[in-house]
């Protein structure tokens, strides 16, 4: 019942978002999120569930997207006749075909060998996309127009919000199928092979075959994401299948949290928001993104989703509220400390000119500002370190198993 509620809630959020925020910017961001969610989930199928670290996942996304744009062009010139609502399926099929081909030799081993093959294939495809101009369109890419297809119940997809509803439908279906995949024997065995390929082989499963199935499914959904990209932007360039895109999806899945189904969704939402909103406020957002990524790997190895799930025990025991105050006492100085570091970085960046940071005006030429900033940073760092012990104690208390007052078994 809880699961049903979660899925219903997911659908309501997906469909309700454009009702709450209906500006052009919001719809653009929602569309980007939709693409990112499917792409990141498909990546998690490889790395989180299958244990295969890929540095070339954009290949399937990009190939799917390119074929989808070509399919749109074909619809426009009436070479083929079908509704553009099915375009993501075209992308998915191409992603699947590419994955079947590559997977036939790359899934032999997981680990470094797989990672290196994926890197090699990624670079090969990125380079080929610049050589084969007639299909990939060189640096300019290829473009199409989505509005020439047969109308879908009277909708001709002139507007982004119409595409959003289409994307939302696809996102929901794709998410549901990817979740169902984790529940199939193939999905369960993918976890087994990830954790211990030798044992999986002993109970009669070919580790290679299990990896191959995960890999192909993942390629299919990456292609679906590529198809959604094609529908949304109506053009695609070689940038969408090179190493930068492959790196970005790794970032999303990792920051969100590998190993949790919901993790990549969180990662996709957070990174898309940072991408579109933060870039309005600062030129340094890529630097901050890198810092966030490195800090996440260092301190939250299971990502945001992992951080949330850490509190499951405390919540089940009804002790989550006891953590609130310690979190506040440690969190406030931590936020102030982070804020002063960011302010210092911005001051270095805006050398010689005053600028607004949050609600304060800062000037890197002003020694007083530097002094105040240093004092803030030092004080908040000290406060944070001081209160860390208290937080740890509260954490231990909230998570202690076999609390004598509860009378449960030790």
């Amino acid at each position, binding site marked *: 019942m809880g699961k049903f509620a979660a899925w219903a809630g997911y659908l309501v959020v997906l469909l309700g978002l454009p009702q709450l925020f209906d500006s052009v910017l919001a719809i653009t961001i929602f569309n980007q999120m939709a693409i990112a969610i499917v792409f990141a989930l498909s990546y998690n199928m490889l*790395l989180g569930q299958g*244990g295969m*670290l890929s*540095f070339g996942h954009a290949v399937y996304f990009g190939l799917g997207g390119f074929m989808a744009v070509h399919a749109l062009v074909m619809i426009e010139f009436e070479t083929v006749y079908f509704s553009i609502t099915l375009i993501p399926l075209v992308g998915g099929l191409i992603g699947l075909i590419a994955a079947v081909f590559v997977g036939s*030799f790359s899934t*032999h*081993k997981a*680990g*470094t*060998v797989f*990672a*290196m*093959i994926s*890197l*090699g*294939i990624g*670079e*090969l495809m990125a*380079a*080929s996309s610049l*050589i*084969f*101009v*007639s*299909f990939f369109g060189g640096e300019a890419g290829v473009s199409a127009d989505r509005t020439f297809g047969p109308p879908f119940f009277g909708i001709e997809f002139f507007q982004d919000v119409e595409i959003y509803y289409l994307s939302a439908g696809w996102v929901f279906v794709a998410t549901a199928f990817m979740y169902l995949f984790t529940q199939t024997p193939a999905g369960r065995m993918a976890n087994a092979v990830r954790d211990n390929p030798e044992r999986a082989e002993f109970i009669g499963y070919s580790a290679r075959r299990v990896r191959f199935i995960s890999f192909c499914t993942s390629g299919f959904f990456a292609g679906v994401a590529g198809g959604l990209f094609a529908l949304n932007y109506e053009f695609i360039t070689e940038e969408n299948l090179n*190493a930068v895109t492959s*790196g970005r999806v*790794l*970032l999303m899945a*990792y920051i969100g949290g590998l190993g949790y189904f919901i993790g990549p969704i969180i990662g996709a939402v957070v990174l898309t928001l940072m991408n579109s909103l933060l870039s309005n406020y600062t030129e*340094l957002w*890529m*630097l901050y*993104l*890198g*810092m966030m*990524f*490195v800090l996440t*790997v*260092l301190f939250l*190895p299971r990502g945001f989703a992992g951080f949330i799930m850490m509190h499951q025990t405390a919540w089940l025991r009804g002790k989550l509220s006891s953590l609130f105050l310690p979190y506040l006492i440690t969190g406030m100085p931590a936020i102030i400390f982070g804020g002063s570091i960011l302010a210092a*970085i911005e001051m*270095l*960046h805006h050398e010689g000119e005053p600028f607004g940071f949050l609600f304060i005006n800062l000037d890197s030429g002003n020694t007083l500002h530097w002094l105040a900033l240093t004092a803030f940073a030092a004080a908040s760092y000290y406060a944070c370190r001081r209160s860390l012990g208290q937080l740890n104690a509260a954490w231990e208390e909230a998570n202690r198993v076999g609390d004598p007052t509860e009378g449960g078994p030790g």
Partner: protein
Amino acid sequence: MLEVFVFSTLNGLVTGLLLFMLASGLTLIFSMMGVLNFAHASFYMLGAYFAYSISLKLGFWAGLLIAPLLVGAFGALVERYALRRVHAHGHVAELVFTFGLAFLVEEAVQFFWGADTKNYQSPDLLNFPLFTLFGQEFSAYRGFMITISVGIFLALYYMLTRSRIGIIIQAAITHPHTVANLGHNVPLIFMAVFGVGTALAGVAGVIAGPVLTTFPGMAVVLGSIVFVIVVIGGLGSLGGAFVASLMIGLLQSYAIASNLGMPDLLNWLGLEFSRDHPLNDLWTLTLPQIAPVLPFLLLVLVLIFRPTGLAGKREE
């Protein structure tokens, strides 16, 4: 024809030896920690940028001395305070961390030095033609690059196989617990090896900066190629990395210098296609065009047919 051959061989050697300087550190770190350091080329880039900043104040030679030390120190700090921490979460986390570090270093370099290309120059002392062959000059700086690289290879090889420190390092790689029981500080050895490996990358950056231009994308350009070399050479093998570096350097240099391509092959086969053929791009492909891709093609082929590389050991 001969002059093209001689010059592409020389250029290939320069590139190959430069690549080896990066690959040697990377392969050493791999055999030690079992993880490929994605950020290795970032240390190379840092070497070039540090040396550039130092050369503005103190000249090229001071940069050659100080920059690698700075890079090595930074590398050691990264190992001590970050990699060791991530190590507890497994290999994937380590690989992902170095990937993130590479990303962060590129952004940080743009933050401190800007996105434009830096005018990092080779020293005046070496700005003369070393010799002239077939009317073309071979600059003394390139000769200097070859000398440094060969010198480093010899020193490293000697240190690892003949010296006491080298023997302890080799033992620490295969039997860390035994070495620790003998009273050696194994984590310190790891940190030192990481520092030296990254310092080597720094040296490569210092001497390559003036030739290959110093810009924020320089790490990305070489990064994946170095990976290719280490994998083709056989993970953890210094000799294999040496052979693979020269191979890749020469391969790329010959491919760029040659003017062969699909049209020649088609001529030879007696085939002809019209320009409107849908695969026109394929029929007009030339070797210089695909030169940058060749290492990756080689990588994929090696991984499929001989996953252990040229000189790698069989996986346990």
